C-alpha cells in the first residue's frame, strides 16, 4: 500500500464564541484509501458537516481547526498557504451540498458556474472549458445539456440542479468528493437517482467519496466503510457490512434498530431515547451515557477511547461493548 488518499488524524475543531471556545470536533481520526467510499453518519449536530468542511479548511466564521492534521495524498493540508489550499478545493477535493436550491448562484448561468471552475484550475481556452462542462453534464444524464448550459438555476428542477452540482464537482476529475447530505433536500423519488449516480461515478472515475448523511439505509447501499459520529467524536467505525449486520456500540445499535428493515430506502432515522447533548453541556465521561441502556459507573467518569476490538477492522469507543 503506497499511502492513503486521505488521512485525518486527531482533528479538532473549535468555535470561538463570546463565552469561550466550544469544541465541535473532538479529536477524530479516519483513513480513506483511493477509490474508497466512507459513510459519515450520526444525528443532527454530531459534527458531520463541520468535519466535511474542515477537510477543505472552509469552516464558517468563528470556527477554526485547533488541532490534528488532514493529509491528502501525502500532502499535509494544514501547512498549505491560502492559494495552495485554493488549488485543492474544487480541484482535488470537490464538495456537494445539501440543498441544491441554495447551492447555485441565482444570477449566473449554469455555463458560467461550470466553466469558471475549470478556468480556476486548468489553463484551457473558453471553448475547451465549455466542452468539459458539456461532457460532465452528459455524464450526470442531463437531457439536452447544450440547452441547460445557457439557463439559470431557477429554470431547473431540484433534482436537475443537484445533478448539475454533481457535474460541477466532477469538472476537474477530483480524487475525492465530499457529499454533505446530497439527497436530504430532495424528493424521495429523486433521492435514489442521485445516490446511484454518485456511487456509479465513483466506480467509473476512480474517486473516493465521503458521504455524509442521517440515513443509514443509503450508506449501507453505497459505502464500504462507516464512521458513526456522536457529539463531535467517532464512536464506532468499520466495514459497512460488519456494522450493519452486527453493530456493537449501543448508539449504533440504536441507529440501526430504528431503521425498519435494513433494505428499505429513504426512511429517516427515528428515535433513540433522549436527545444528543448540545456542545455546551456534553456530559462527563462517555457523552452517550445518559441515553445508554447498558451504562455502568465507569461510563459516567471516564471517556472511552476509540479502540479496535478483537483484531477486526472495527473500532469502538465503549467501556462495556468494547471489551
Amino acid at each position: 500500500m503506497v499511502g492513503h488518499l486521505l488521512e485525518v488524524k486527531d482533528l479538532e475543531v473549535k468555535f470561538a464564541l463570546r463565552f469561550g471556545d466550544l469544541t465541535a470536533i473532538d479529536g477524530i481520526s479516519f483513513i480513506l484509501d483511493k477509490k474508497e467510499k466512507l459513510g459519515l453518519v450520526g444525528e443532527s449536530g454530531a459534527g458531520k458537516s463541520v468535519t466535511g468542511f474542515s477537510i477543505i479548511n472552509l469552516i464558517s466564521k468563528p470556527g477554526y481547526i485547533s488541532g490534528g492534521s488532514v493529509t491528502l495524498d501525502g500532502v499535509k493540508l494544514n501547512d498549505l498557504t491560502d492559494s495552495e489550499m485554493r488549488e485543492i478545493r474544487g480541484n482535488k477535493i470537490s464538495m456537494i451540498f445539501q440543498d441544491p436550491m441554495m447551492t447555485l448562484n441565482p444570477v449566473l448561468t449554469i455555463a458560467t458556474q461550470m466553466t469558471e471552475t475549470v478556468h480556476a484550475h486548468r489553463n484551457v481556452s473558453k471553448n475547451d472549458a465549455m466542452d468539459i462542462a458539456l461532457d460532465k453534464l452528459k455524464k450526470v444524464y442531463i437531457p439536452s445539456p447544450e440547452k441547460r448550459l445557457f439557463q439559470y438555476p431557477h429554470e431547473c428542477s431540484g433534482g436537475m440542479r443537484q445533478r448539475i452540482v454533481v457535474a460541477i464537482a466532477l469538472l476537474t476529475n477530483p480524487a475525492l468528493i465530499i457529499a454533505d447530505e446530497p439527497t436530504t433536500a430532495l424528493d424521495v423519488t429523486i433521492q435514489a437517482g442521485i445516490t446511484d449516480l454518485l456511487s456509479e461515478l465513483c466506480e467509473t472515475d476512480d474517486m473516493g467519496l465521503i458521504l455524509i448523511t442521517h440515513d443509514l439505509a443509503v450508506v449501507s447501499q453505497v459505502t464500504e466503510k462507516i464512521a458513526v459520529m456522536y457529539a463531535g467524536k467517532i464512536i464506532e467505525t468499520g466495514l459497512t457490512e460488519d456494522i450493519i449486520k452486527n453493530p456493537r456500540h449501543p448508539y449504533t445499535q440504536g441507529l440501526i434498530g430504528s431503521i425498519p428493515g435494513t433494505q428499505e430506502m429513504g426512511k429517516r432515522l427515528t428515535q433513540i431515547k433522549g436527545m444528543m447533548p448540545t456542545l455546551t453541556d456534553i456530559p462527563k465521561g462517555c457523552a452517550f451515557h445518559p441515553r445508554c441502556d447498558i451504562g455502568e459507573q465507569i461510563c459516567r467518569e471516564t471517556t472511552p477511547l476509540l479502540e479496535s476490538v478483537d483484531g477486526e477492522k472495527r473500532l469502538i469507543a465503549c467501556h462495556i461493548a468494547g471489551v
Partner: protein
Amino acid sequence: MFAFIIRRIIQAVIVMLVISFIGFSVQHSIGDPVRDMVGERVSEAEREALRDKLGLNDPFLTQYFRFVKNACYGDLGISYFHNKPTMHVILRKAPATIELIFATTIIILLITFPVGVYSAINPNSWFSRVVMGVSTIGVAVPVFLTAIILIYIFGVELQWLPAFGRGDTVNIWGWETGFLTKDGLLHLILPSISLASIMLPLYIRLIRSEMMEVLETEYIKFAWAKGLNRYRVWLLHAFKNTLLPVITVIGVEIGILFAFTLLTETVFQWQGMGFMFLEAVERADTALIVAYLVIVGVMFVVINTLVDVIYGFVNPMVRITGSK
C-alpha cells in the same frame, strides 16, 4: 423582456396621469389664469367673458382633459411672472439640475460601492469601523449644514473652489452644459458633494449589510468550495446578488434626490429647476409650479423605468416571468 417593457410603460402612463391630475387640481383650485393674464384693473364682467372664452367655466373634467391634451403637445401653460410658456422656462433651467443630479449620482456610485463592498469583506478592519462610525453621524447631518460647512471651508477660508452659481457653460444644441469647461466643473464640485452627502451614509450601510448577508449564503460557500479566486467570489458572485436590493432602493431614493435639489440649488445659487421652483412658489406662479411638478414627474418616471430595466438585466428571474 418585451412584455416587461410594455408593462413598465403602462405603469409609467398611469403614474403620469395621477401626477398631472394632482397638479391640475392644485392649479384649478388656487390658480387664476385670468389674473395671470390681465392686470387688476380689468372689470369683473370682462374677466368673466375672458373666462368663458378660455373655457375656464367648463366642467372640471373637461378642463382636465384639455390640460392633458395640451401637455401631450408640450404646452403646460404660461408663466405669469416670466410671461413665457412654462415649458420654455423650465427647459432652460433643466440642464443645470440634470447635470447636478448626474454628477451627484457619479459621486455616490464611485464612493458607496467600493467603500460598502470593502467594509462588508473586512468588517473588522479599522477602515470599516471608521466608516461605520462616520456614516452613523452622517445620516443625522442635514444637507444645508454640510453645504454651509463646505462653502465655509473650501469657498471662503481656503478659496479653492467656487461656491456660487454654475460658472462658464457651453451651449451645445440648446443645452447649456458646465461639463465641458474647467470653470463649470469646478463649480459643480461643492453642490454635488453636498447633495451626495445625504445619500452616502445610507448607501454605504445598505451595500455593506446586503453584501454581508450575501456572503453568508450557501452559494457563496459553494463558490469558495470550487476553489475560485477570492475577487471572483466577491466581485462577481457576491456583488451581483448585492446589486439587486440596492438597485431597488436606488429607484426609490432618486425621488428624494430630486427633492433635495431644491435646497442645494438655493444654497449654492444654482440656476436650475429647483431654484426656479422656489422662486415660482414665492411669486405664486401657479402655472409654473404645476409645470415643474409634471416635468419632474416625467423625469422621475423615466429614471425609475431605467432603473427597473437595469434590475431586469441583473436579475434573470425578471426576464423570464415578466414580473418581479
